């Protein structure tokens, strides 16, 4: 694989994270190309979600560096990471459950919002104009993910699949350059997975790279352009789905067990 310095969207080098005596991440190095869908796979406990948490600033890594679009990413500062253009969804859905569907997406616009608190208190013209723009953009995003008619409902009354779509819309509202999806297809049937796959491809086509964690290997292999494999907190393989599937290390660590 040829590595050109500036051609990567994200470069993680030697990321380590310990919890007490447990080494959750043991020097993870991986690189993501722009305009691609990358699958992050690996056995349970391999460190996939921990890596997501480091990437999005929830955890501060003990060692290593993250470069995003060639610039160091602020570590342990979720709202600054969001501002830099990384958004995510969660394995266990974490919507603002008591807020409306539309409001959930509108919160996602917060990072691209200028009007300050004083504007909100005194309802200046600029604030009202911005609020209209936020509302319009939120409606567009709900249409984009296919739940445009559900805007006024309370988030936790949506069906499970629609809640996952709402999480994606909320993440897209931050105008990310990289969208990180933590098991987006968990609990979905085959038809729902296919539709979700279409949505993810469309997101890539529209210019946002996608990094996703998923356990359904078959689905990941046909959806993703690139695959990175984590095992015991290390990245053991990286490449196209074909290359990874045939990598002996991967077969030994992961695919060898009942995933042919």
């Amino acid at each position, binding site marked *: 694989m040829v590595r050109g310095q500036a051609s990567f969207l994200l470069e993680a080098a030697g990321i380590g994270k310990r919890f007490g005596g447990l080494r959750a991440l043991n020097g993870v190095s991986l690189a993501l190309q722009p305009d691609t869908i990358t699958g992050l796979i690996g056995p349970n406990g391999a460190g996939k979600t921990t890596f997501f948490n480091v990437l999005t600033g*929830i955890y501060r890594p003990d060692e290593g560096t993250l470069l995003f679009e060639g610039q160091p990413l602020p570590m342990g500062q979720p709202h600054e990471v969001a501002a830099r253009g990384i958004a995510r969804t969660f394995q266990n859905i974490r919507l603002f459950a008591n807020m409306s569907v539309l409001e959930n997406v509108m919160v996602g616009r917060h990072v691209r919002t200028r009007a300050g608190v004083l504007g909100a208190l005194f309802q200046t013209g600029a604030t009202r104009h911005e609020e209209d723009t936020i509302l319009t953009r939120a409606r567009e995003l709900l249409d984009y993910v296919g739940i445009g008619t559900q805007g006024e409902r309370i988030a936790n009354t949506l069906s499970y699949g629609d809640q996952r779509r709402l999480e994606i819309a909320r993440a897209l509202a931050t105008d990310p350059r990289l969208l990180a999806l933590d098991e987006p297809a968990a609990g979905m049937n085959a038809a729902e997975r296919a539709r979700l796959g279409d949505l993810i491809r469309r997101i890539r086509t529209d210019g946002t790279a996608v990094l996703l964690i998923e356990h359904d290997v078959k689905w990941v292999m046909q959806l993703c352009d690139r695959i990175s494999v984590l095992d015991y907190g290390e990245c053991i393989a990286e490449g196209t789905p074909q290359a990874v599937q045939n990598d002996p290390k991967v077969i030994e660590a992961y695919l060898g067990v009942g995933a042919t």
Partner: protein
Amino acid sequence: MDTFLQQLINGITLGSIYALVALGYTMVYGILELINFAHGEVLMVGALVALTVIQGLTGWGWPAPLAVLVAVLAAMVVCMTLGLAIERVAYRPLRRAPKLAPLITAIGLSIVLQQVAALIWGRGYLSFPAVLPPVSVVWGGVIITAIQGAIIVLAALIMAGLLVLVQKTALGRAMRATAQNPAVAQLMGVNTDRIIAWTFVIGSGLAAVAGVMVAAYYGVGNYTMGFMLGLKAFTAAVLGGIGNLAGAMLGGLLLGVVEALGAGYIGDLTGDFFGSNYKDVFAFMVLIGVLVFHPNGLLGSRAREKV
């Protein structure tokens, strides 16, 4: 019947003040799950600052209405700054500490604020100048004084404004998102530290207004005035369902009315064995009753799922 209606008006007046203070407790609790026991002291500082400003300005010959307006604004500015400082100095460093630590700090802070106020304003009862002429409307045998009318109308306006702020603006949306899930709100680019600071500032502003109201209503201010009022407003917040804005408003009004009716009827009910000075007992009996039968308060939902 006249007694009933009269006590109802008195209760709504008192309840409006409780509601304003209860909102401060409930907003902070909603976001931090912290009971800010120093909130009553913020109210006291607001009342005493206003008292000093009014005395000073009227002493220089300012017209009373203008002096009152300036005094309220001064009290709000001082209290908002105080609220901001309290959050920054006493609570933010303990954000990740066990829940009991900030609670103890809050109680400690409350004592410190009382003692500092005692040094500045003394330990005596200070008479609050009459800010409105002692006129009143008599309506079907019920007397509504000017100050009662002003308190009820002003409190209603402020509460309506707060609801609009929280439900309809980007700041309010960020506050609700932070209350529901601070970690996720941060990932959406919400600077939760700033939102928390604004919550304290807004709550302290409400407390300042409530402080001026209560001092003007009873015509007296004292360095301990925040203690019982804070406790009752906290009761009101729990009564309505702590963390719930509408609950704090409802709880405040209900508590005020129950207390006033209790004071009005307790003599008759007990053959004059208990007098109206037992009215506080009613407030806390209501609290115990609600907590026994409806532990989450009148409008409180079941405990939120936390990350």
